[in-house]
């Protein structure tokens, strides 16, 4: 019984995260309703700085990309989801809490350019600094 449960539930990770991410925590973090229409975008410092350098990078699917390449990627990702659900297309931004807003603003602008307006700042549910 248990065996079958876990066999069904297990989903192999399809893309490896190549950046170090310590997500921020927020008290108002809500569970994402529809995972099918969600794609992930990672921002952080590479796990292996010896190969990828120590600067903050943006990871789309499996590769490091520049913020300017986001619109093309969004187009590609939108094809993946059913046509009647394209309005619900959501980009979940998983970013390290220490990154600067400069790079995030760039990413946000590119997403606007690509007309991917629904975004989620991924965060752990938990105490934030504000609620001491």
């Amino acid at each position: 019984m248990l065996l079958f449960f876990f066999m069904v539930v297990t989903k192999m990770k399809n893309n490896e995260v190549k950046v170090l991410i310590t997500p921020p925590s927020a008290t108002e973090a809500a569970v994402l309703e529809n995972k099918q229409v969600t794609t992930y975008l990672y921002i952080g410092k590479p796990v292996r700085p010896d190969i990828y350098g120590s600067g903050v990078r943006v990871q789309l699917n499996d590769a490091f990309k520049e913020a300017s390449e986001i619109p093309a990627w969004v187009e590609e990702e939108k094809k993946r989801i059913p046509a009647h659900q394209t309005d619900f297309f959501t980009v979940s931004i998983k970013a390290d809490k220490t990154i600067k807003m400069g790079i995030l603003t760039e990413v946000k602008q590119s997403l606007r350019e690509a007309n991917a307006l629904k975004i989620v700042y991924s965060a752990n549910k938990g105490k934030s600094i504000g609620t001491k």
Partner: protein
Amino acid sequence: MPRQKRAIPEINAGSMADIAFLLLIFFLVTTSIDSDKGIAIKLPPKPDKTQVLQKIQERNIFEVLINSQNQLLVEGEYMEVSALCDAAKLFISNKERNPELSESPDKAIISLKNDVSTTYGAYLQVQNELKRAYNELRDEASRAKFGVAFDDLVKGSEREQEILTMYPQKISEAEPEDIFKD
């Protein structure tokens, strides 16, 4: 030589349990029920050249600035993040009809501006506090009107819609050009 009828050897099923157990452990380890949580935001559409700028009354704007040191300046005054939620609630609801605060909750607009080197953690902190202010106000209104928590209202129902129109979440973020200019 007469062919002897050979009995079919039985398969040893004793190790079945072991195999199943091993598989169970394998799947147990590899499973990651990743529950993705986060703060949902809707970005404004691309700026339109033909867009007419609406004049918004000064009293309806709640200005929040975050500098490069992650410090807050709210309505021209320094503020701790922990005080932001209450200040925002006071501004949005304005139950005492203070002429310096918003006219009504649906007219209140929160203007958020951050520096290039503000950290993402601090920025999200502020987003979280503002969201909390709205969530708490909606919850209060829902309890006062219908006697149930806002989260317990049926999704997409009229009641939910009523609360949402009462307290629409209007958080406006500055265009990057405006940020990088100064």
